[in-house]
């Protein structure tokens, strides 16, 4: 993980600041940095999104492909996650350096999305036991500025919102063999319902208090963090503790409450921006990567 080295007095300054609810950049303990969200940035994907949270830059692409359903769930499609830590973010990720972090993040995403109610997988089924849609979600880390998982989960939700899966019809022949027909109209597609897709909120424990959306410097001062995934209704779908420090059970309860509260506002803000972008449609000037 990209990290910065800080001197002891610097760390002390940050810890005391958090105690008084005034972080280095003037934010309170529950404030997020200003985020920029844009969808449909990669043209050859079914859906894509780019999220910039301070110095953290994430690009997510979703590709819908046809595959066979899993044996234990024959009438559902599924999601596959792959996280690539680009060497652009930090030289430590060159070659195979970013693999460890990438697999860790991918496993966290699998866990968060393992909840049955998050994505309606039955809508991805075409023919039970034979054909289904597989959504390959690829995450690319362009820049590491702290709080990676929150930004990744926001980008994944935005990309899934933007995903357009072509409508297919199953035709049955006289012999009984099934043929799949793709509709001719490129705009004839199904959209996913992302109302229950959870977002990850990382709460880092610094001193006696916890902060949301930690920067790299704040992450260097925190010994333990709690990752919780919250849906828009405030329901917790998964929880994970990271870091080498220990957490008091009472503080875990407090952090969970804060996480639920912050998670709900996060979903409201994200949905607002996604709806606004949808409403602007083609009249919005695309910024992409060269803006």
């Amino acid at each position: 993980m990209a990290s910065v080295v800080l001197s002891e007095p610097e760390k002390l300054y940050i810890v005391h600041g958090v105690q008084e609810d005034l972080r280095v950049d003037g934010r309170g303990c529950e404030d997020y940095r200003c985020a920029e969200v844009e969808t449909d940035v990669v043209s050859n994907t079914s859906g894509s999104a780019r999220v910039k949270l301070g110095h953290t830059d994430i690009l997510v692409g979703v590709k819908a492909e046809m595959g066979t359903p899993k044996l234990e769930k024959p009438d559902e499609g599924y999601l596959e996650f792959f996280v690539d830590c680009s060497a652009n973010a930090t030289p430590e990720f060159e070659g195979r350096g970013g693999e460890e972090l990438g697999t860790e993040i991918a496993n966290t995403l699998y866990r968060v999305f393992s909840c049955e109610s998050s994505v309606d997988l039955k809508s991805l089924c075409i023919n039970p036991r034979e054909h289904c849609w597989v959504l390959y979600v690829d995450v690319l880390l362009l820049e590491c500025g702290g709080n990676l998982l929150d930004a990744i989960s926001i980008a994944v939700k935005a990309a899934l919102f933007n995903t357009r899966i072509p409508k297919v019809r199953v035709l049955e022949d006289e012999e009984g063999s099934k043929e799949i027909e793709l509709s001719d109209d490129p705009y004839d597609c199904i959209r996913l319902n992302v109302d229950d897709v959870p977002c990850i909120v990382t709460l880092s424990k610094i001193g006696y208090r916890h902060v949301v959306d930690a920067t790299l410097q704040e992450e260097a001062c925190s010994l333990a963090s709690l990752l919780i995934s919250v849906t828009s209704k405030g329901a917790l779908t998964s929880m994970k503790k990271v870091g080498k420090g220990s957490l008091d059970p009472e503080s875990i309860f407090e952090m969970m409450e804060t996480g639920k509260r912050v998670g709900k506002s996060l979903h409201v803000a994200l949905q607002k921006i996604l709806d606004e972008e949808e409403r602007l449609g083609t009249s919005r000037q695309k910024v992409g990567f060269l803006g």
Partner: protein
Amino acid sequence: MAAITMRLPVPRKVVGPSASRGGEKHLVAPGDTITTDTGYMRGHGTYVEEEKLIASVAGAVERVNKLVCVRALKTRYNGEVGDIVVGRVTEVQQKRWKVETNSRLDSVLLLSSMNLPGGELRRRSAEDELAMRDYLQEGDLISAEVQSVFSDGAVSLHTRSLKYGKLGQGVLVRVSPSLVKRQKTHFHDLPCGASVILGNNGFIWIYPTPEQKDEEAGGFTTNLEPVPLADREVISRLRNCIVALVNQQLMLFDTSILYCYEASLPHQIKDILKPEVMEEIVLETRQRLLDLEG
């Protein structure tokens, strides 16, 4: 109450050339032809190909009589004797420390160039060498002056004055070295209630103004008491103002930082980092600086 703002990205506005700049700056990109006149000598940032002088970096062309060179706008710090730098210790070696100063090679701080506590002047012994880690460890921040530059470009630092030494509590902001204006002094005690060190290497250190000048300390003792909230607010505001100035590509010096601070007072500290607020306060700062000149 959590405050989360999300926005759609806005394409960056092309900033037109400002009227205050005296004379046209000849900006070039790598590969641009500077001149086809063969009478010029090539300096840094240029090369000759097919009798044309071509730029190899992106920056402004500078001409001194017959010497043409290109000064890059975004570059690593190139040390010059007498510069003040703020650096972070990366290694503790046998008789020296390696300090990271945002240059191509790590800078060197020799044990003999460091002040001993109490200001005593004596030859450094083996005990001093073993006690090096007590003075400076990996991760510590120091302010120092450039003593000399080696032939490979590495910089040798010294802290032979009581105003240099280990830095205590405060905030570090990293900017591009070309944005720090060269001035007579780089240590400023701003009237708003905090002090700032503008390192020539682009490391800006903002810290609470110490109450009394401790003469014997020489920069070794660090004050570990919690900084009061009022000072913290000033420091956070200054940090955000500096980030705003860098974002809008304005030169950093004590007056510009102070004007930006005053322009930002009507806004909340965390709002300064919003793009529209940044533009507004930097525009006001630019205006005041122009009025000051004109």
